[in-house]
């Protein structure tokens, strides 16, 4: 490894109040490599990248770019030097065109007047490099989320950076688009651009990265070449302990149908979908972005009204006045896709979030009884193993994995018959993931029906009894995870085989 070092961190420390977000990081990023940064939520990955981008100034230590001290420079100066960061949150300006969005930081001017013609050439070159076609005059608000992701990527690439940081770039895009992204990363590598890649998805890291740096609790544990690091060892390094059972796969007594969906139709999103889920069964809905998973979940829960078709719960048809509050009465629980805006109340404490569903549990004669409330919340908190174990903590200040545990936990106070979960492990680290799978297993054991929408194939194969593959709103195939391979599932997800059931 005689590669030149492009960026390096020397003893970088960053504190947020009393917590050490970064605790003396020494790290070299070499030229022409794809460098993975992995670690649980709150390990310091994003903080490190924000420090590199100039959004945080380190409390101690120095940053170097090509042997030049860049500590304390503002983001724009760092961008000009050739470091570009693609953040997890897509900050696009919706009313503006694709062209304007890509050139957001560097609109071309001529004598103080904006000159979009000149910029158009530059942008078109970048888009050709990525290998994607856009009508540059279209407003970005009308694009899909995955298209927006590519607009943001183009924004980072338009100035030909030397170092590109991608923070969870694949969480919103489909498999084909992931392949486009990987092609771009390889092309960049050939052109001498270093990519720093942050992801929770192990397969991706092994597919694309040359080196892996593992972070835990604000410390750099180790940097290794990918080919010298086994997956199990990587997981152990991330968690600081051995992970015994990742998928606690158990088959329980599967009872009779409890949730049944017949010929469901919703606009062009759900197309004649029928399936059922039995007591004690975990069923996964898998499919690409836009396959209709979320829509099916939301229709069953009553957020969307189907155009036609029926939903049966315990063999009773669901009436037209079905709504989320009716769904709760019919014993359906929902853990929604968007944790931050749908699953939790960010400004409330863990306690208030945990007791939000059924306040009768914590009430005495119509008034909330603080003693009861504390008792119920504390019991759940212990069961969920939320860290820190403090029910008065604000939920928004927890890490993503712990937040998700609380979001699930609020449905565990009472037994529900049907649990609907939408991308329940998105942005959740591997330790919390394992615990969440444990909770799902327990729910099934107690006789609940679990319907899980996921884009993570490993997850679907690991914990479910049946996999239903969706393609463009249609059921393509129902698979038994024990008699299948990942590649087979993948080919159905891509719409490879169009055999209906």
């Amino acid at each position, binding site marked *: 490894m005689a590669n030149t070092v492009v960026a390096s961190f020397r003893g970088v420390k960053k504190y947020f109040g009393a917590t050490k977000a970064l605790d003396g990081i020494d790290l070299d990023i070499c030229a022409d490599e794809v460098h993975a940064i992995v670690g649980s939520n709150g390990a310091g990955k994003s903080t490190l990248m924000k420090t590199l981008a100039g959004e945080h100034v380190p409390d101690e230590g120095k940053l170097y770019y090509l042997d030049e001290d860049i500590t304390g420079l503002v983001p724009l100066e760092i961008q000009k030097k050739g470091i570009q960061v693609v953040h997890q949150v897509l900050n696009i300006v919706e009313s503006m065109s694709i062209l304007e969005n890509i050139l957001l930081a560097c609109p071309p001017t001529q004598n103080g007047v904006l000159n979009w013609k000149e910029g158009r050439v530059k942008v078109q070159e970048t888009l050709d490099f990525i290998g994607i076609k856009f009508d540059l005059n279209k407003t970005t608000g009308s694009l899909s989320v995955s298209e927006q992701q590519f607009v943001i990527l183009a924004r980072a690439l338009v100035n030909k950076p030397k170092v590109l940081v991608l923070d969870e770039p694949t969480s919103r895009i489909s498999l084909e688009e992931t392949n486009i992204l990987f092609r771009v990363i390889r092309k960049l590598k050939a052109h001498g651009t270093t990519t720093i890649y942050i992801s929770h998805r192990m397969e991706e890291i092994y597919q694309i990265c040359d080196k892996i740096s593992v972070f835990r609790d604000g410390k750099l544990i180790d940097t290794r070449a990918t080919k010298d690091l086994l997956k199990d060892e990587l997981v152990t390094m991330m968690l600081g302990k051995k992970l015994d059972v990742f998928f606690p796969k158990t088959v329980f007594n599967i009872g009779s149908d409890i949730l049944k969906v017949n010929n469901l139709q919703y606009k062009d999103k759900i197309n004649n979908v029928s399936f059922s889920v039995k007591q004690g069964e975990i069923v996964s809905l898998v499919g690409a972005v836009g396959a209709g998973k979320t829509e099916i979940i939301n229709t069953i829960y009553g957020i969307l009204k189907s155009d036609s078709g029926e939903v049966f719960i315990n063999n009773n048809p669901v009436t037209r006045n079905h709504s989320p509050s009716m769904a709760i009465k019919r014993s359906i629980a929902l853990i929604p896709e968007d944790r931050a*805006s749908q699953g939790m109340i960010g400004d409330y404490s863990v306690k208030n979030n945990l007791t939000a569903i059924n306040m009768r549990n914590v009430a005495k004669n119509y008034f909330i009884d603080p003693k009861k409330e504390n008792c119920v919340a504390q019991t759940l908190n212990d069961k969920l193993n939320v860290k820190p174990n403090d029910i008065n903590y604000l939920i928004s200040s927890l890490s993503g994995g712990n937040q998700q545990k609380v979001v699930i936990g609020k449905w565990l106070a009472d037994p529900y018959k049907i649990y609907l979960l939408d991308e329940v492990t998105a942005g959740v680290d591997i330790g919390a993931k394992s615990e969440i799978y444990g909770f799902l297993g327990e729910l099934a054991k107690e006789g609940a029906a679990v319907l899980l929408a996921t884009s993570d194939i490993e997850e679907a194969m690991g914990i479910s009894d049946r996999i239903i593959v969706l393609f463009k709103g249609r059921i393509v195939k129902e698979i038994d995870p024990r008699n299948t391979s990942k590649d087979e599932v993948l080919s159905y997800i891509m719409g490879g085989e169009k055999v209906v059931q």
Partner: protein
Amino acid sequence: MFNKMDKYLRLYGMPLGLLALVLLLKIAFYDVPLFSSRNLGDILLENVSVAIMALGLSFIMISGEGDLSFAGMFSLLAVIFAKVSNSTNNFLVAYLSVTVIAVTVNFMIAVLVTRFKFSSFLVSIAVLFMASGAEKALHQQTTLVNDPTILSFSTIKFGLPLVVWLMAIVYFVSYLVINKTKFGFSLKIVGENNNAAIEAGINSNRMKISAYVIAGLLIALSSSIEATRVGAIYQQGTFYMLPVFAACYLGSSMFVPGRINVIGTLVGVLFLGVVEKFLTMISVQSYIVSITQGVVLIVSVGLVSFKNRVKIVQIKLYNRG
């Protein structure tokens, strides 16, 4: 083809609809000479102050903030203008002093709003009442501008009153600033997505402060014109509050749907001006005018949020992380 039509309809449907509405009024009341050249000139002249004030508010709203203080500042500045110009007999001194006051006040509002994160609504409403209090204190005797050179500003040049030309120039320059310069581009980014602005290395506080300062310049101009045109003023600003807001929101439903924009604001002002003129010409009670303007404000707010509703739901569904 259909998509393209849909797009043009989204961008230009609203102004065409307004035009149709005005023509309909014209046809229904054919004996009212709404579009005589005299009346058209009057409509323009009567709305110069509102138009320039609405432009100032547009700048603030484009930067993503809001303001109510103009309603109080407007008449306070006009009174100060009258007093200074009467005592010095020099309208330039008067204009410069109100400009300095307006810019200073708006700068202070902006600092509170940006640096100290005060709510712009609350700060500006406080300033509104402080200004109108100060105006009452100054109103010991009736103030009238009695300088003949100033009062000649309403004279007709090149077919239109001088101040109307002034308004046209101010709008044209503002249009260029917002749409053709990096400053305007940055201002729009700040207003729509502050995080995107931070990522693009734009100092959003400085942009917002600039917007308030520009609005200060414009309100000083607007109230100076009002003082020279009307001569006597008492709490006039509050009457203009509704048309100014209605014009901005109505404007945001056209050309750049969902976004406040310069030309939209101008069209909004002119539409409201035509409607008001029409209502006075068929001699309805003056309260009907206010009610009509209120309805226009609510309808345009409704149109904008209806158009954007689908999009908002989408963002909520997908903006995780």
